[in-house]
């Protein structure tokens, strides 16, 4: 079977895990295999049956109170024992903060290689072949992971979620976790005030650059994210380096690589290292005073004009269009 790791945050299954499960199910179907899901933690059994609809023929729940908080060493320990038992040809993770932390630890435990941040997956000669961006999207490489299990992390927001599977079964296993394996567990989670979605998970990104002129003006963009569904605020490196907004929001080669449905760029010139990080967005819309700004070369729609004059009208227009 293709085994898919399912991440739980704040008691809920992450959407990106459902994307990975759906993709696992699609490829497993081609290989005439089943897709299985695995939950690691404490008290997660109740989430298992919800995964059948996304194609999990079986859900393995690895249970131990010591796993109630994320610990890369302990989670890798638990997953490793399941992989040894099931011997799946492939193991998929979503390329979230947790997935990117955990997958390589599991791979090293198994002594196998892995491909990170995959954006496409297909079956070739009975094995998975993946495409992934390198240099933050300036190039794309098609890889075959030759070791088994083939381990991959899948970039969030790229693979479609597919509901429609039927029934499945759940097996809860009380796993043994040596106390010393929890030496890197998370003690507490500190949430940034007012943040909702991360740019890597948003369907719409409202992004700003130097043209915003001050940290306060990022509120204009925050306002737009309150109107637009599943949206988050992004920023250019120069805006971040000016101290106008936290680095968490930075898009580009020293920030995050994103592929939202819509990327709205305000006062952002489009330096090469920024374009690399967002060029795979489905639609790019730019508002900039400078008609020669490089961002217009990649924008599907551009407005040459003053963002401070345009945003208030845009806000009203969007409200009206969304209300209809």
């Amino acid at each position, binding site marked *: 079977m293709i085994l898919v790791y399912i991440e739980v945050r704040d008691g809920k299954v992450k959407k990106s895990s459902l994307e990975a499960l759906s993709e696992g199910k699609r490829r497993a179907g081609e290989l005439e295999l089943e897709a299985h899901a695995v939950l690691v933690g404490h008290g997660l059994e109740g989430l298992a049956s919800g995964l059948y609809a996304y194609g999990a023929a079986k859900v393995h729940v690895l249970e131990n109170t010591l796993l109630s908080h994320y610990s890369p060493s302990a989670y890798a320990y638990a997953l490793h024992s399941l992989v040894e038992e099931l011997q799946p040809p492939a193991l998929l993770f979503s390329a979230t903060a947790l997935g*990117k932390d955990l997958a390589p*630890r599991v791979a090293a435990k198994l002594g196998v290689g892995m491909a990170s941040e995959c954006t496409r997956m297909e079956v070739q000669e009975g094995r998975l072949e993946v495409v992934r961006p390198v*240099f933050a999207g*300036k190039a794309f490489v098609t890889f*075959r992971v030759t070791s088994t299990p083939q381990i991959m992390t899948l970039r969030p927001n790229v693979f479609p979620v597919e509901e429609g599977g039927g029934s499945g079964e759940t097996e809860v296993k009380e796993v043994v976790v040596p106390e010393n394996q929890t030496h890197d567990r998370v003690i507490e*989670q500190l949430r*940034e005030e007012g943040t909702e979605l991360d740019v890597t998970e948003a369907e719409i990104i409202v992004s700003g650059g130097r043209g915003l002129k001050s940290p306060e003006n990022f509120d204009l963009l925050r306002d737009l994210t309150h109107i637009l569904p599943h949206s988050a605020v992004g920023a250019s490196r120069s805006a971040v380096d000016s101290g106008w907004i936290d680095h968490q929001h930075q898009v580009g080669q020293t920030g995050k690589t994103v592929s939202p449905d819509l990327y709205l760029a305000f006062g952002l010139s489009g330096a090469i290292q920024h374009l690399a990080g967002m060029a795979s967005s*489905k639609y790019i819309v730019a508002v900039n005073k400078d008609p020669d700004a490089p961002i217009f070369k990649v924008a*599907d729609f551009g407005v040459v004009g003053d963002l401070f004059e345009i945003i208030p009208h845009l806000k009203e227009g969007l409200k009206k269009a969304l209300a209809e």
Partner: protein
Amino acid sequence: MNTFVFIKRVPDTESKIRIDHENNCIIEEGLNFVMSPYDEYAVEEALQIRESKGGTVTVFSVGSEESIIILKKALAMGADEAVLIRDDAPESYDGLRTARIIAEAIKQKYSEYGLILFGKQSMGADNAQVPAMVAEMLGLPQVNVITQLELEGNTGSALREIEGASEKVTVPLPAVVSAQKGLNEPRYETLKGIMMAKRKQIPVITTAELGLSDEQLAPQLTIVRMETPPAREAGKIVEGDAAETAQQLVDFLHEEAKVI
């Protein structure tokens, strides 16, 4: 406390990437190579630890002889020692291979350390695999993508960035950590540092010396193809009255992109 920092030579972020399709690799000619930006935060953090806790900072790089330039930069920033782990193999994008080389070098030759630092990922391969793999191979705790680190006795306390939040993690030392932007502000090299770095001998270790077999060094990934993304075509550009152009933008989102 002694710290080890692992750094990598990569093309700078302004680079335009061109592909050698015959060999499935990037064309290095004309590119400007630098220390991977996230690694600079790791070096800076190690220097700050030395300043507050004592000990030494040793930087390592796995790569060709050309990596000496970035090792010299780290020395010029203030690192005490630099070591080149010579590996002339082409970029395979296989983190396991690099992690094996690093873990072997540490196990066999460098046992005195309290902390191993990396950048959260190398710029280019964008893998973010090696720090966690090295931690696993050495049986150490890991905290990746950190924006804050405090050391107290035999314990490290770090903040690690996740989606829309931070996680606080406390680990026993020695440990592996990887640096995110925001951890600190990397210093510039000083003139004195540059002069000292020039004179400094950089020992070279080879993979053969580490006793790694061809099998252990064989990449676990095969590159089938390498391409640049299709160029996006510029779309419609409008100019004029703010209310009018804003409405045109809304119409585009509604009717063409259908995102609202």
